[in-house]
């Protein structure tokens, strides 16, 4: 299964929850993170043996989802890009396309840069935003 890893060598699987700490005065600024999207379980020998694609073709894109749109945190607090530099010009809350396919193995790992910029001023802990991958199809390369 394609997952996020926290290291480029894809040895540390990301736990799934990204905990960020913000201040009501937004003094922390934007928080940047990088993950690696890969499937090393299916291709441990790093042969690039499999391709992940959309079922009907087209680009495979991640989307920002909001469990409670219109209240609390909004998807525009999240930016995603394939490069660190790309974060600056990324559209807040926009989907991130990784192209028509992803290739299995460590070599095929795709860096996913994430920037979290809080816009909420009231104190609280919230888990309502998520970065979601769509259902895909895995084919032999």
């Amino acid at each position, binding site marked *: *299964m*394609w*997952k*996020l890893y*926290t290291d480029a060598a894809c*040895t540390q*699987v*990301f*736990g*799934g*929850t*990204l*905990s*960020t*700490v*913000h*201040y*009501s*005065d937004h*003094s922390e600024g934007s928080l940047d993170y990088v*993950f690696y*999207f890969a499937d090393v*379980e*299916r291709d441990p020998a790093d042969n690039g043996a499999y391709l*992940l*694609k959309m*079922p009907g073709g087209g680009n495979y894109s*991640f989307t920002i*989802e909001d469990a409670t749109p219109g209240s609390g*945190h909004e998807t525009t*607090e*999240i930016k995603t890009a394939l490069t660190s530099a790309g974060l600056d010009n990324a559209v807040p809350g926009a989907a991130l396309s990784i192209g028509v396919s992803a290739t299995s193995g460590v070599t095929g790992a795709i860096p*996913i840069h*994430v920037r*979290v910029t*809080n816009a*909420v*001023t*009231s*104190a*609280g*802990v*919230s*888990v*309502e*935003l*998520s*970065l*979601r*991958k*769509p*259902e*895909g*199809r*895995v*084919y*032999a390369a």
Partner: protein
Amino acid sequence: MIGSGVIGVGAVAGELGIISPEADLIQFNQNVKFREIEPSADLIVFEQSVGEIEPARDLIRFQQRVGSVAARRRLPQAYIWINGVDYSSYTALDSVSVSFNEDQSATASIFVFRPLDAVINIPSFHAKQIRIETHVDPNDPASDVFPLFTGWIETAQHDRTRRGIAFTCSNLRDERLGDEDAGQLRALTGGVYSNVTQVEDAKGRDYANELMKTVCGSIGYDRAGDRRFYNWGVAGKPVNRTLTGAQVAYADPSTEFQTRSSVINRVTVNIDYRYSLLRSISSEVNVYKERNLVTGQFSTQFGPRDIIDYKAFRRDLMIEKAQSFEPWETLSYSIYPLEKAGNGGFVFDNLWPVADTWCQGFKSSIARRVAQPVTESYKFTITAPQSVDAYGKTIDGTELNYALDTEYDEALWEEEFKQTRKRDFDAARAVAQASADNRRADLALAFEAAYRIGKKQIVAAHRQTHIRGSVHSIFPVDLGDVCEHDNRIVDSIGQITGFEYAIGNGIRRTTIRMTISYMDTLVAAPAENWAAPLAPGYPEADLVLESTAEYNADTEVRAFEINVAEIPADYTDELEPAIAESAYTLPLEINSITLVNGR
């Protein structure tokens, strides 16, 4: 042409005849047309790409904590999410425990307080998904959050005294494995499934269990709920976690070496394969009586005279008989024509004018087919020489016995197959033989599956030494991770086969059970020399037998006694070729361990 010169009367050897001049009897007009060979070729090659479904899922859940700069919040020891609802603040954080063990469902238990006078709706919690997470650093809200457990509520029990609900949870490993795609499991694990060596037509979780019997590895679900497979052993794998002296608890670690009685180092596999050898047995029935058969003599005044049996046979009856040797099939026959009756140069034959209706016998070429059951027996042993040396003897495990049968309907060959209707008998027989021996592929799969089952039993029997240690912190580990003990008590590298998380009052503890394969031997690991046993090949299937036909001239009988060949039992009863025996050696991983009687 030689003839007697008299119409309707044939020439007799030694008598005068008319010599006819040489002439062409037939002019062959042979029109040979060029036949162009149209070679066979693939018209369409189908390249079929089958896609596995990669499910949609959340890659990142953003847990955003907003507070004032000066505020310092106490972090929960663990986050509890039940069916997407945050129960962290209701959870008794002195009683969170999580347990993972190899090849078992992971379990967790928590206690959730409920407000006084609140309605307790126990069924509403049943089977709901639960996720337990925690920070790597419980004092740093920005530290990584990682899952401890993802599963479903197994039981929810109201505790009136504590005023809350005690939950036990499971990750439903077996059930979920049963829902996995069989092809994906095979591809992921490299396992094989054979209806011969494993439970027949296994489906769902049974299939997963049967498949894993052939894999030296384990499969389950990790803390995040994702499927996880790993091969047993540590060779060639990086160390994921090192437990130094400062990390392991004071009273730890402890070691538990495997028991002697659990060791096996040889497994014997017996596989019987039964098919039908399609034999073709041929014979010839030669039924002939000479027309002027001298059967004796009698004395006369002119001297002795022969007693002659002039009997001839109705041609139509002979033709019928020539084709009537059921269950033998008559392939061809010929009729011995009527011979002229006579004695001393005199012809006195009242049959001769109708010679076409009489004959002296026939010769039939007959064939019969027998589908002879053949049972090939294969026996192979899998032995771990390192273990034999370490324990001083060969210790046999339970023999693995399997059998498979083609269940061929013998009537197809013996009765329904007709040789005379086949333009190319050899090709037709080859097709029939393939049908009567159509489980060779299953046999090959059974060989491999049986070998792998035996191999896993031996490897598992040596993977029973455990080192248990506790660390006073919570950190992410997974089953199958390679762990190194490098502390004051133990120095060894093994594989994590169990771990527990415990969060209580002032307690954050991870207990790890590491397993090693250890034995005391200097014997070098042998090469694994598995290769499927070779089939002995078909015995000679064609057979020619002798049939006899004798004319009984007894005046009371004057008939043929025909004895069609009897097929010897060797060609009909079950045939058992010599057992094909093979021996394979299995290398075992040896993980060294140094124990120090430390303080």
